[in-house]
């Protein structure tokens, strides 16, 4: 880890948050954006800050697919599984991704540098199939294009 631990980063965000019950989701986003995940050890402090029970915070964290409670892989590859992408070969793309990364959906590559996740629609349905790698959206992803995108990331590891 860099200068501060994930829990310390969470604490700093909690200390500077705006009051109000509607701020829970924005606060969780801020913590995950800074620390990469929501550290389980930060949950009691989050609950205290929002006057909620730990169970309520846990409920929110686990309801939303976006939030994770473990550190993410260096790169997160999200392949769209929705209908429009299926009509253009998303299943074959996913199979290819699983072979290239050496893991199945919801898994990590052997060296831990890539995580493979599903996503349900990236709004690129007219130029399917689509995927998102970290914050970058890619459309019309052929297997060759997939390989180029991954290779480019591996160069920067």
């Amino acid at each position: 880890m860099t200068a501060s631990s994930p829990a310390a980063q969470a604490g700093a965000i909690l200390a500077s948050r705006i009051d109000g019950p509607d701020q829970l989701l924005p606060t969780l986003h801020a913590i995950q954006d800074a620390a990469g995940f929501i550290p389980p050890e930060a949950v009691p402090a989050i609950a205290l800050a929002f006057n909620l029970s730990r169970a309520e915070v846990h409920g929110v964290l686990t309801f939303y697919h976006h939030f994770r409670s473990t550190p993410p892989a260096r790169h997160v590859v999200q392949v769209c599984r929705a209908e429009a992408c299926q009509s253009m070969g998303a299943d074959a793309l996913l199979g290819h991704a699983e072979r290239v990364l050496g893991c199945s959906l919801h898994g990590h590559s052997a060296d831990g540098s890539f995580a493979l996740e599903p996503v349900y629609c990236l709004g690129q349905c007219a130029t399917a199939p689509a995927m998102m790698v970290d914050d970058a959206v890619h459309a019309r992803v052929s297997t060759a294009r997939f390989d180029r995108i991954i290779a480019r990331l591996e160069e920067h590891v």
Partner: protein
Amino acid sequence: MSLTIFVPRDSTALALGADDVAAAIALEAARRQFDVTIVRNGTRGMLWLEPLVEVARPAGRIGFGQVDALDVAGLFDAGFDRSHPLALGLVEEIPYLARQDRLTFARAGITDPLSLADYEAHDGYRGLRRALAMTPADIVATVTASGLRGRGGAAFPTGIKWNTVLRAPGVQKYIVCNADEGDSGTFADRIVMEADPFMLIEGMTIAGLAVNATRGYIYVRSEYPHAIAILNAAIAQAEANGFLGANVLGSGRAFHLEVRKGAGAYICGEETALLESLEGKRGIVRAKPPLPALSGLFGQPTVINNVLSLAAVPLILDKGAAFYQDFGMGRSRGTLAVQLAGNIKQGGLIELAFGVTLRDILYGFGGGSASGRPIKAVQVGGPLGAYLPASEWDTPLDYEAFAALWAVLGHGGIVVHDDTADMAKLARYAMEFCAIESCGKCTPCRIGSTRGVEVIDKIIGNPGAGEGAQQVILLRDLCDTMLLGSLCAMGGMTPYPVLSALNHFPQDFGVAPAQRAA
């Protein structure tokens, strides 16, 4: 040589390398010492052509389609002339665009989405200025008279919803924009946010004036990072220039607006789940009544509308209810943002008055399937919409005409499948998706979807008249329970894709067509 070159900043264009193209143009211009101004416009909606680079000429803008960074030097060599192989001629004359009725998307692709001056130069904020001179009741009456119906799927008359909120007593009323566009095959909300964000901001401000709400939220899904960034930048500009804030254009009326990011839950596109999520809770569907119009966000009267409904409002206020009414057919007034997607040659956004046929969309605009194979089925209205076979493609796009077919027009999203599609697999996927995304509050949806996957597996695994046929009866019964017993459209409409697939394509399930009546 001095040139103005447009390279879209729309996320489809970016997903196909538009940033690399823009960087290559800047580099090449510097190398050749050309005076080039690069404008990052929105998309025209002709998504299959992205990145669609345009160059301003005296006669209009000339387009170059599917430009790669590697094409840039060649484009400079050719002087961005019409003779270049990627040239498309005048963009406005491309039939796909020329045939449309662009009302909501009149500015899309033409303006720089983050230029307030550009927005105002193209009729922006005229609707708000008119609204500021009207009473709330008159604004509501204008929207009601326009015939505008909610574009999110349910097609409820917008003016009637607003009137309920206007008349409801409440300390703090809210305007909430549902931008949780999670349906596969839809991207019109995204294009509004990325290509013309001030239009949505203006529409919400007018809604605030109409019902005396001083706060607004735009709930955008986390899968749309570009839309979120553009909206935040546009809101900051609107605030800095007096279009939002404590004193809108010096009127003494307040309207504060902020963007809220979702967290990857499809169900939050359901309006009451969205309100729960805004309140910082799990996105669990609420029972109705009470309607959100009476008891919505934090228990206060709340207008909750889809992006396209709110985006239609500035034009209606500017040009009048009659102007908008003039488009459309029957009780479907104005324009529909058709979103053509999936296995289609020319996918994109097609804004048209209601009434055009599905077949014209698929072949006249779409040019047939991308794979070149025959089109087998189209799903209209998102993952909860019915699959329609070729025999039903002459249906006009109209809410009532679709309802008569036991189908839903919904938001106008169309996903095309060619003849390699396995409809039983797609039906199974519909149940599986419902199982993954169900909020869990009601049993028909939470349990029914899981049982649905199992039953479909048994049908597929036992083709013929024996066990499979028994399971078909069970599947129909289960769908009946989900249709009638679910709390919201998630469980209540999942039977649409499932049963339409089974009814129209029984052979894919290993079921004899004769069993259709079972």
